[in-house]
Each structure stands twice: as C-alpha cells, then as structure tokens.
C-alpha cells in the first residue's frame, strides 16, 4: 500500500503541497474581503471559487509529479506490474483529492463563518459542490497529460498557465463558463444556481478528465496508437453535446429564484430584505425610521413598506431599497443608501426600462440629497455655492411645496411631471 504513495514523496514534500494549495485557497478568500460574510450563498460560491487558484496549483503539482515520473521512466516500470495502472493513475487521483480537500475545508470555514454571523442557509445549493469538483478533475487531468507529455522543465508552468487561461476564457464567455467555479461579485440575493447549467458544465469536465485519464493510461497499456487515439477522441467527443447545449441555451450559472423569501423589520416604514442578505436589516430599519422623520414632519405620506431590489422580483407598490457594491452583505449600513431608498417610494417600471428616465432620476437625486442634508448625513457631495447647494440651504417652508409634489409624483409613477426645484 505504501508503494502506491511513493509519488507523493516524504513528509515534508506532502506538507509543502498541502500548505501551498491551502495558501492558494486562503488567498482567494482573502481577495473576497468581507463580501462572503454576509451571505451564505456568496460564502458557498467563494468556497467553491477557491478552485480559481487551487485548480491551477493542483494542475501544476500534477504536471510536476508526472513529468518526474515520466523522466524516470516510471511508465515502463509499472507497465509490467499487475496493478500498474493504480500506481500510474494514482497521483492524478491523489492530487484531485488534495485539491478537493482544500476546497471543502475553505468552503466549510466560510459557510460556518457566514452562518455564525446570522446568514440564512440554503442547503439545496450544496449540490453545486460535487458538480464543481468535476472542474478540478478536468484541471488535474490536463496537468497530468501536460506533465507526462512535455519536457520536464517547461511542463509545470505550461500546466499552470493553461488551466488559468481556461478559467479566464470561461469568465469572459469565450468558452461557455466550463471552468468557472464561483467567486461571484454580487450578493446573490433572491438568486440561486441554475443546476441544469452546472450539470452540463460538469459533464464537459468529466469527459475532459476521462480523456486525460485514458491518454495517461495508454502510456502503460500496450495498444495500437490508432486505437488509443480513437479512445481519447471518443471520450472528448462526449463533451460536444453538453458544450453545444451550453452554447445554444446560455451558460449563466445564476438564475432568479421564482419566489424569493423576504424578512421584514420595523414599522412605518417597514423594511424587507431578501432572506439571503439579512445582515444589514437591523441597522437599515433603524436608519430608515430616523431619516423618515423630516418627511413625516412635512405631512408627506411615505409607503408602508420598502423592499430590497431583487432580480426577477418586482414589488411595484412598495418603496425600493437598492444596495450599491457590497452594501447588501455589509454589517454597517451606508446612510446614503437609506436616503436614496426613501426617495424611491415606488418601484416604478420606468426605472427598469432600457431608456433611463434621466429627468426623474435627477429629481429623485435632489430629493435624496434633501433627506440626507436634513439628517446630517456626511459626504453628500453637493457644493454649498452650487444651485442645488443654495436650494438645499433655503428654509423648509420654501422647499415644502416642491418636496410634497415630487414625492406624490414619484409615489404615483408620474415621472414626466418631475422637475428640479432650481434652474439647471
């Protein structure tokens, strides 16, 4: 049994591989900053996304191992053994297990952290983990074939760069997302994986890994080269139907959930966020109540409920909360987000049309600036000498008429009636 692990080297070599692969995984998570802490779904995506660097590192380790084995003619040695194929293909499996273990460890840590910080779990999305692990199998397979086929010195960088370029091409859409494993930049609120896409991508990766394993096996199994070529090409051909399906039907990994669950808090106004991103809810509810005071004092009727903007879900009778950057997963709330939310009392369809209602957005911006000014929100970015700045400094009695009419127009989606309260 011990002889099967000779390729792995001594204890220090094994430890170095573990540490190297783990460092790659940790680097990916470190680059994610705090975005994955506020959402279980994002944490899962970043956990599986560690393969972005773990994959090329594993491919490189595999290339290093096979190039060493090939240069020492290990293939000739094991070809005559009864279970030679185990010794020959074992390293490929071993490196895959190494990468998988690191990916699972990273995923476990980020999921546990996100859960501990109050994120709601979506266990059905865990089915993505076995599917994504097939991508790692394909990357390791490519590394093994490169290592066994090319000169020793050059094989490792080539395997690393090739697998990384495949990921880059997947992200840019040149190849249909096959080597994309995660690292989403949005909050994934109200979204889930499109498992039909993930399954098709996994099928392409399984076919690639099988072709690589067959190609390796023919180093030690004596068959005609034409037979070997046909077998490898046959395995690769299995990747064509799922690839074609991905090209024709689209390959976006994420789709909107049919009925996203909301979690609400507070009264007048009540604030509802997706159950996937509840981290800022308490702070948002408090800040919303605070910033609503100046509007309520003027007798302006604000909506009963403000709902987070979610892909595919439209709550047209409610106010709209739009988070910018990582706001939906952050622990603290940006007061400007609240000012803008209060200035959006209804999710009017015009806001989501292809042609942006520029004039209405400008009026909404001035209204948001007024709310922010009245609540002493820092960093509004309006010069006191500008026309808007001068208007914002006027007494509220002079501003009230415009504020009431603008709020009413925004609440009724009469966006064509909107104007700014000063000459532009």
């Amino acid at each position, binding site marked *: 049994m011990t002889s099967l692990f000779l390729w792995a080297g001594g204890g220090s070599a094994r430890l*170095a591989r573990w540490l*190297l692969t783990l*460092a*790659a995984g940790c*680097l*990916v998570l470190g*680059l*994610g900053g705090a975005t994955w802490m506020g959402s279980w779904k994002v944490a899962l995506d970043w956990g599986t*996304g560690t393969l*972005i*660097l773990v994959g*090329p*590192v594993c491919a*490189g*380790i595999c290339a*290093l191992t096979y190039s060493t084995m090939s240069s020492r003619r290990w293939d000739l040695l094991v070809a005559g053994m009864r279970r030679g194929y185990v010794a020959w293909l074992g390293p490929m499996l071993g490196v895959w297990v190494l990468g998988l273990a690191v990916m699972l460890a990273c995923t476990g840590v980020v999921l546990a952290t996100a859960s501990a910080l109050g994120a709601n779990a979506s266990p059905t999305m865990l089915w993505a983990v076995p599917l994504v692990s097939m991508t790692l199998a394909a990357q390791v397979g490519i590394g093994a074939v490169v290592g066994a086929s090319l*000169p*020793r*010195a*050059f094989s*490792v*960088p*080539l395997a*690393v*760069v090739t697998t*990384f370029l495949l*990921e*880059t091409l*997947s*992200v*840019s859409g040149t190849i249909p997302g096959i080597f*994309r494993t995660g*690292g989403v*930049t949005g909050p994934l609120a109200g979204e889930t994986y499109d498992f039909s896409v993930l399954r098709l991508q996994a099928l392409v990766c399984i076919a690639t890994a099988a072709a690589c394993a067959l190609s390796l096996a023919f180093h030690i199994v004596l068959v005609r080269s034409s037979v070997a070529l046909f077998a490898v090409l046959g395995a690769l051909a299995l990747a064509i139907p799922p690839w074609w399906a991905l090209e024709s039907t689209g390959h976006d990994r994420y789709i909107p959930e049919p009925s996203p669950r909301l979690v609400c808090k507070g009264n007048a106004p009540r604030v509802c966020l997706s159950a996937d991103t509840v981290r800022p809810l308490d702070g948002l509810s408090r800040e919303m109540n605070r910033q609503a005071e100046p509007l309520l004092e003027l007798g302006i009727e604000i909506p009963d409920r403000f709902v987070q903007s979610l892909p595919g879900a439209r709550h047209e009778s409610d106010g709209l909360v739009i988070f910018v950057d990582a706001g939906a997963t952050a622990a603290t709330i940006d007061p400007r987000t609240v000012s803008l939310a209060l200035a959006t009392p209804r999710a009017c369809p015009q806001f989501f049309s292809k042609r942006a209602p520029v004039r209405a957005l400008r009026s909404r911006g001035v209204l948001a600036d007024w709310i922010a000014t009245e609540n002493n929100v820092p960093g509004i970015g309006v010069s006191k000498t500008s026309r808007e700045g001068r208007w914002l400094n006027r007494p509220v009695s002079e501003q009230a008429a415009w504020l009431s009419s603008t709020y009413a127009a925004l609440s009724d989606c009469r966006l064509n009636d909107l104007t700014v309260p000063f000459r532009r």
Partner: protein
Amino acid sequence: MRTVARGLELDVALLLAVLLGGIGFLLWGEEPMLPLIRLPVPMPTLFPALVCLTLTWTLRERWSQQMSTIVRHPGVVPSARFIGTQTTCAVAAAIAGSAAHPGPVICLSSVGASLAALFTLVLGRSAVFALLILSYLWLSLAAHHPLNFAETHSGWLAAVSGVLCGGIYVRTEARRSR
C-alpha cells in the same frame, strides 16, 4: 555560444518568447476580465505576469552535480542563465508592446524575472506556484489601482531588482556548485 544556449534551454525559451510576444502583440488592446477581479485588466499589466510565469523556468539549474566539474568560474553559468532569462523575457515584452510603448512592459517583465530568480533559489521547480500567487496579487492590485505607465519609474525598479536579485541568485548558485 549555440551549445551554451542549448544547454541552458534558452533556444526553446526564445522560441516561446517570440510566440508569446506575437500573441501579446495581436491582443495588445484587449482588457480581459480575470476570475475574481471586478475590473478588466489591461494587457500591459497582464503581460509581465504571463511572461514571468511562462519564461522563467530556465532559471533552474538542472545539472547541479555536473556544475562542480566545470573549469570556468562558478558564477559564469548562473550569470548566463540569469541574463539569458532576462533577455527572453525582454524579447517577449518588446514584441508584444512594439505597437505602443514597450519600455515599461519590458521593465516590469524584468522585475518579474528577477523575483522569479529569488523564488527559484528557494523553491526550485515549485517556484511557479509562488509566482502564480504573486502574479494574481499583482493583477488584482494593478486592476484596482491602474499604473500610469508613462510616469512609472519602472526602469530604475528593473535595474535595482535586477542587480539585487541577480546578485543573490548568481552568488548562491555559484556557492552551491562549488
């Protein structure tokens, strides 16, 4: 000379450098999206990373036992390796950036090659993994804080890193071969 270049595998590296440079030249205006990096990465930023990942494998001494038998000064072969690797990296960068201003790209590639020399001393064939991690850090940093290539004093950086890292590389390799 030809034999020395072959012995150091610089002929293969030069061929790859020309190939890589040609591909870089064709794609010079592109700004590809890389995984996990929110902003597109311009080619002048990406190319030095690609060069030092792909072309610095020649820095590793493959026949260290035989080095002790040569009659020349022990620093000659490591120096030739270092200079040869710097040259191949510069050739790739010069071809790729020839349509624009290749100077800063050549310099950044040279800095990458110098760092690769240090990694090779410590990690041997595993240096490429450390280079991958470093390159990724560089790309994510440079994507979010774009460098002004015209103003960057990359020439000085390349010269200092070359002398420093090259000196350590040659000295250590020469000691090892004694």
